[in-house]
């Protein structure tokens, strides 16, 4: 369904460029859910926005983004607008400002239907009711304004909105980040159910690996603009960074995990001043001398898994 082929994103700023994404290739087959994990600054949000060409004009995007075989990046403007939302839609953090504050929820959910001429008037209203019930909101909520809803409810609205045109792919960018844990659990359950019911592909982006492991079949980990590992969510991580990321969250109820050393020293690198060789080596607990000079590509390392580390693979 979705295939990224060496996607690159560079932002032009005064005095140079910032390479936010340095060559990402992945694929999300129909009906599958892929999680994209990484810290802030890893470039994951840039990937999400690049998929539908939603980046600002100061961004240069390279590579190919194949949506059902068509390259989004070279589409004509009219075709792009037709594809947006109807083939692939986005769920942002609705808890913040993802919804227009001065328009009613129902109007915002119905908007893509009107834009893509799929429905109007009473038919559109019925569809809105249907979508609201699918996400567990009462029908009268269509007349509400965003500020009248809680964070969790707003997130459900974003999901309902994303389903409006029955897309084949949903891109969810940090959909549960600003929510309370209980509400987070509800929303994740909802997402799982909906993509299973409708057979939609999902690309979910988050810095929280446990959230991604909950919903997605496979996980990809990004660091400094590149993928460092891709593999099934049920397996163990092989790349030192992924391992550190996974270990960063303590397991509730396991006393041993509280005392075990956690977290990584240092900060993610400045994209304009990347370390030589493997970008992770300054923070890597098992770095070798060669890591400072030789860059590593993804290589096979176990069942259906690839990782970009010298120590991994045969």
């Amino acid at each position, binding site marked *: 369904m979705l295939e990224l082929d060496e996607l690159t994103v560079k932002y032009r700023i005064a005095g140079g460029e910032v390479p936010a994404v340095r060559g990402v290739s992945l694929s999300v087959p129909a009906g599958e859910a892929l999680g994209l994990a990484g810290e802030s600054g890893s470039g994951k949000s840039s990937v999400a926005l690049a998929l539908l060409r939603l980046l600002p004009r100061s961004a240069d995007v390279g590579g190919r983004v194949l949506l059902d075989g068509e390259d989004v990046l070279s589409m004509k403007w009219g075709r792009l607008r037709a*594809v947006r*939302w109807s083939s692939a839609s986005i769920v*942002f953090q609705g808890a913040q400002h*993802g919804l227009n504050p001065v328009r009613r929820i129902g109007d915002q959910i119905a*908007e893509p239907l009107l834009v893509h001429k799929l429905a109007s008037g009473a038919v559109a209203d019925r569809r809105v009711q249907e979508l609201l019930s699918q996400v567990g909101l009462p029908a009268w*909520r269509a007349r509400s304004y965003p*500020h009248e809803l809680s964070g969790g409810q707003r997130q459900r609205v974003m999901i309902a909105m994303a389903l409006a045109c029955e897309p084949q792919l949903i891109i969810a960018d940090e959909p549960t980040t600003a929510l309370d844990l209980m509400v987070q659990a509800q929303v994740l359950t*909802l997402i799982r159910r909906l993509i299973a019911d409708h057979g939609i592909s999902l690309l979910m982006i988050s810095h929280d690996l446990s959230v991604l492991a909950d919903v997605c079949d496979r996980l990809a980990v990004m660091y400094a603009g590149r993928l460092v590992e891709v593999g099934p969510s049920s397996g163990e991580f092989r790349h030192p960074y992924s391992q550190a990321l996974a270990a960063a969250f303590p397991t509730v109820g396991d006393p041993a995990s509280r005392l075990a050393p956690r977290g990584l020293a240092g900060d993610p690198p400045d994209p304009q001043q990347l370390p030589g060789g493997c970008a992770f080596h300054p923070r890597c607990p098992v770095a070798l001398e060669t890591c400072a000079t030789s860059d590593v590509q993804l290589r096979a390392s176990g069942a259906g898994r690839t990782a970009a580390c010298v120590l991994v693979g045969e």
Partner: protein
Amino acid sequence: MTADTTTAVEALEERPARHGLPRYAATKAGGALLSIAMVIVATFFLFRLLPGDPVRALAQGRNMTPEQLDLERARLGLDKPIPEQFLHFLQQTLSFDLGTSYEYKRPVVDLIGERIGSTLLLTGTALVMAVSLGLWQGARAGWKPGSRFDKVSTAVSLVLWSVPTFWLGLLLLMVFAAGIGPIPGIFPTRGSSSVDKPDGFAGVLDVAQHMVLPCLTLVAVVYAQYLLVMRSSVIDEVGQDYITTARAKGLRDDDVRRRHAVPNALLPTVTLVFMRIGFVVGGAVTVEAIFSWPGLGQLFYEAIRVPDFTLMQGTFLLITVSVIVMNTLADVVYHVLDPRVRSA
């Protein structure tokens, strides 16, 4: 808790009641009345601040005997003690009697009544034009900051903002009314209609012709402000996620701007526009003075020149109270327009 339980719980919730508006309007009206009361008191004391007494100021440049001065003093009630004067003033003002003009020897309210129509015509037209142009251009400029349209719009606004209203009026008078070099003067230099006062449609055209230059002057200086404010409001909105969502839905760029960015940017802009209505009033006074447009502003200006303190006091009171009322109206209207404030 499953989604179904959530739905059940929410179905039991009551829909929020909307009862904020009457209470809000009442609060604002109360505030306005307080402000107006403060204006009345302040006006009273302001006009008695004169070093010496107002009558002496009147006497400057005129030959008046001491008896005439005393007569004038008695007429203005200045020989009475201050508390008594204040009570008298209060009584007069609240019964809509603003005294008698020294210059015209007629009740101030009559003079105001005669002139107010002209001012509303000129200022109203100018405001409509300034708001429309300023908001539209500001929205387009803010939508693509740094573009050529934006740079030109901002530059023009900054220049117009720095140009004193009266100077712009002078320039327009010079170029379009009097004519310069080979260009003939095509607009009249003063008044709101020609001496012969034509009737019917010709009369309307005549007034319109007289209104062009003063209106243009007023619009030019005022619209720059609106443009700059709208522009920055739009820039603030453009960074928000819901704009990206709208784009992602496949809307055209213009539609995203018009349906999403502009309505949100309008709210703080409208508030600011109304807060600055005092500035428009000042501009109107200046423009009416230069072009001798027979409105309230020119009446006020004349009162200052003579000086006719009763007339000055009366027009000042009216102008200030109008501004307060308009501000209050704007507050209430904003409350109605912004859904976030409405149900608060």
